[in-house]
């Protein structure tokens, strides 16, 4: 049986040569993403801005404009409506009533239910959330904190485990991934809620996974070919790991693709974020973080110095018996 190989044997792409172009493109895209986030803003869900979210399911496909008229007539504040999932489902977002606490938000839900039922018989509320401003503030804070801690924690890990250049290049590449994801949400105006924070954290985790594999190979090759030029060495390492990088990205995208198409509308934004993140993360592993090591001045000498510092057990494991004569 002929086995599938997405990347042919002995592929040798000059990634390092392309790095200035790649940096320029990356910088441009990142600026665009940040610009879009600042200019258009994120479509923050009730998790983060507080308010009332009602998911109404109608018997038949409805026009959001008609639903909007009904909601506007209630006089419960500025609502925002969105078709969600299928044409029969509409998501209605309303500000929280200013006073009255739980009772008041109940009253708003009740009012909306009655008004909609009068206009569209058989409507049901399949989901509703109310989040107070205080809680939503904390959720934002925790979300941002979680992402920042994860990025910093991982950068520190790879700094201790390898050289500082690896820490910085990983940090830059991951920040790039996070910013691109934010930009994606700003441009598409998909709702940004707590689930998306989980997606961003997963992207961070996946992306770091990817970079670790390449970084690990670079380290290995640095010990193996001490005299090799750094550029050639990084190209070699990225090319050697390329089949794995592509294979894994494709498998994960396959799994996520199934979730995007069949996983139901609640998870759609989440899955879209993740798929984008996988693509962006793979790109940044190949083009950004490894090439950045050269710009940061990584040299085999630096690796030697650090290697003498790490504990003996780790060295023994890394420097274990090796027979490299086999390579032509």
């Amino acid at each position: 049986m002929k086995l599938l190989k997405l990347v042919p044997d002995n592929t040798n792409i000059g990634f390092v040569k392309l790095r200035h172009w790649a940096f320029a493109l990356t910088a441009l895209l990142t600026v665009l993403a940040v610009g879009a986030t600042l200019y258009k803003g994120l479509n923050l869900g009730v998790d983060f801005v507080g308010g009332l979210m009602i998911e109404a399911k109608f018997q038949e496909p409805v026009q959001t404009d008609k639903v909007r008229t009904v909601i506007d007539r209630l006089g419960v504040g500025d609502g925002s409506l969105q078709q969600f999932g299928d044409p029969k489902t509409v998501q209605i977002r309303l500000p929280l009533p200013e006073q009255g606490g739980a009772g008041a938000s109940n009253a708003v839900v009740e009012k909306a239910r009655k008004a909609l039922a009068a206009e569209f018989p058989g409507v049901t509320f399949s989901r509703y959330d109310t989040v107070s401003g205080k809680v939503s503030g904390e959720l934002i804070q925790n979300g941002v904190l979680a992402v920042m801690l994860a990025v910093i924690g991982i950068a520190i890990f790879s700094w201790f485990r390898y050289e500082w250049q690896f820490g910085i290049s990983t940090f830059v590449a991951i920040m790039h991934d996070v910013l691109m994801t934010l930009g994606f949400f700003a441009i598409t105006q998909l709702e940004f809620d707590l689930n998306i924070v989980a997606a961003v954290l997963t992207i961070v985790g996946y992306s770091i996974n990817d970079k670790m594999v390449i970084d690990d190979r670079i380290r290995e090759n640095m010990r193996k070919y001490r005299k090799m030029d750094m550029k050639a060495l990084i190209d070699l390492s990225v090319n050697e790991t390329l089949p794995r990088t592509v294979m894994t990205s494709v498998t994960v995208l396959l799994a996520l693709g199934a979730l995007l198409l069949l996983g139901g509308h609640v998870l759609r934004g989440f899955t879209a974020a993740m798929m984008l993140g996988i693509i962006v993360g793979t790109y940044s592993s190949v083009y950004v973080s490894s090439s950045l090591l050269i710009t940061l001045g990584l040299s085999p000498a630096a690796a030697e110095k650090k290697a003498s510092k790490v504990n003996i057990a780790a060295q023994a494991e890394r420097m274990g018996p090796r027979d490299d004569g086999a390579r032509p």
Partner: protein
Amino acid sequence: MLNFSRWTVAAILLPLLIGILCSVPSFLPDSTVERLPAFMRTRVNLGLDLSGGSHLLLEASTQDVAKQRLANMEEQVRTELRRGDPRIAIGDISSRDGRLSFMVRDPSQVDAAVERIRPLTQGAGLTGQRDFNVEVVNSTTITITPTQAGIDNAVKSAMEVATEVIRKRIDEMGTREPTIQQQGGNRIVVQVPGLQDPRALKALLGQTAKLEFKLVDTTANPAEVAQGRAPVGSEVLPYPANPSGSPVIAVQRQVMVSGEDLTDAQQGFSEQGNEPIVNIRFNGAGGRKFGQVTSQNVNKPFAIILDGKVLSAPNINEPILGGSAQISGSFTVESANQLAIALRSGKLPVALTVVEERTVGPQLGADSIKAGLLASIIAVAAVAAFMFVSYGRFGIYANLAVAINVLVILGVMGMLNATLTLPGIAGFVLTIGTAVDANVLIYERIREERRRGRNVVQSIEHGYKEASRTIFEANVTHAIAGGIMLALGSGPVKGFAIVLLIGIATSVFTAVTFTRLLVSRWVRTHRPTEIHI
């Protein structure tokens, strides 16, 4: 590397077998699982987004607790100094800026007053820390300031009691398997699966249910009461259902009987008609007090006060000696029933407000499960097919490992009684994707080693060895991200992180160790000179 002793094989297979067995109850119907012994009920709970139900986050106002403590302190100080012996006259009592201050009329008694107050301010804790600081300012004014430790203690115990009271109330509602947990310093999470309409629940948890009986001050001038002024020793309270039309009423400050003396409360109907009421029964002491008060005040109105509002103020027609009474007050059957439940479970030591509420309908939950299940099956099938066309026999090994991994994750979640949420399903699907990453790393490495000219056995050994290190490091970093999610995340983030972390741990085991076992078996029995990978 490829040789496994009998014991190692057992050590690899046994945990996998246990994991798989623990996943079985999750697939069985409810009725079958209930018949299993407790240790075998290793079942994954479904989150509210999958089962449908209500999630409420309640918050207690810490200021309320502090205020209430100060009011209690004021009461205690009054009692101690005015009623004690020798009587110490005080005036200008005020509680402003979170502290209580008053003036001792006779300057020579200031020291004696401080002595008498001190015991009241001692903390109950073992640390010997004071709950209040007592100071003398301007030689005649005494201030009592609560300490932070005192407030914290009070909030803590108030929250413990509140959690207990909420549990009782929800149990009384007869809902199944509610989750009630304290969160942070002053919050309580309530999750009730299957509850579709949380209005009743919110109404129930929203009332403090502080019940008091006080005598109506009939001497008060109605005009003054309307303006909010009451004679000394009385206070003006709202009375929404006052038959006389005035929204307020003056009652004496002294609490004659309180809800703490209740033993039972039931919804019922009044004798005259079918007006819903609440029948209450007092304990011995409460019954005696109630009998005494009603005997001494026949033909006077008696105010029934709930959470600071007068429900009704019926006339005492005759002494009520049996230890039971009725509460009337324009109830509906539902609201009377709720009040009965609230009174039975005791009063909340602090008022709670709903700061977050999420309700998912059962249909959406069922749809989500269906969609998630379908997506998972398709994802597994797609990944399996892809692995097979890429790595042949080795792909099958990896697929076997993934299949076992899925079951083991479910098993571990079952053992921990973890909750599977919708983002958790996404975590599952992602885990499937990344679990094969370990195998991809190993197989690509084997391919590389083959290209370098090593023989089959050497290539496999090297492939596993070199890749294991990479896999380990990659997974450690992945786990860092997962751990942070678990620690900081709330709700969906947490549900996702649990699956992710369990998946990381089990996938390393199945993808590396388990496939190595399979590969080594095959190599040893077939002794291949060439492999298709």
